């Protein structure tokens, strides 16, 4: 799958490597910004209030 994506990127090798790195970085940013905060509601670390609205 990743090999297929890499082969279908346009341009010479160095450009494809650069594009792949940029893609990887943007996926990372999206995960930190949106995916991980959403996932954290399923963990138990962040519940420190009494009678809290948030479920563990």
């Amino acid at each position: 799958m990743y090999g297929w994506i890499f082969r279908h990127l346009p341009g010479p090798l160095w450009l494809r490597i650069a594009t792949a790195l940029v893609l990887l970085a943007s996926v990372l940013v999206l995960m930190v910004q949106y995916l991980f905060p959403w996932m954290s509601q399923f963990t138990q670390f962040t519940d420190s209030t009494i009678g809290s609205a948030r479920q563990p």
Partner: protein
Amino acid sequence: MLQVKEVSGPAPARGPGILSRSVQVAGELLITAGLILLLFVAWQLWWTNVESDTRQREVVKEFAENLKAPGDPAAQSPADSSLDYGTPAVGAEPADGATIGIIYIPRFGADYTRPIVQGTTPAVLDTLGLGHYPGTSMPGAVGNFAVAGHRQTHGAVLDNIDALTPGDRIYVQTRDGYYVYVFRNSQIVLPSRRDVLLPVPTQPAASPKESYLTMTSCNPRFGSQERIIAYSLLERWQPASAGPPAEIAAQVARAVGEG
């Protein structure tokens, strides 16, 4: 990492069968899922602390700068702690998300300086530090000044709450002055025990005569099945014009001046 499988050269008659292809894609997806989970753990346990620490330092700095603004020459002269300044000044409860003050807890380290912010919503607790339970007293008032903070992740502001020893001083600095609390005891309760926030903690019938500081956090350290509650009592206060208590003068100067 991404192109390991590429060595297959010119594909013999349209490459491998559909089965081995789907097995490969499934494998790559599973590896991806594993990596995402590992990254998530790193983010949750480490990166949220980095982010929150930075944000909280900014909040402390902003608050300190606002204090300096009215031309307050306070920070120079550590006050004589034996003086009695009478009934503590009590500020009004600010809007949600506004900074109430700074808390200094020497037991947690010589540079333990965290903001106290109004509200206990995730938006406050996850980035801004300790959250004040709305509706509970303000610092210095007769009653219960109750705050919550994370034990782990997002700054881990109360990670060492179990290390507090009876007699430990806890200093709260607000616009009005410095409130010195003395830690008395802690208690581990179930998350539903709202009565720890009462004006006299856990005693619905009593009417308060003293000023309490109640801090709540997760228990055990990496779980949330219980809450650990730390109770402190107001020992004395001094107005901002009298300067910070001598014991934390260096800490205050660092928090205010550090830039």
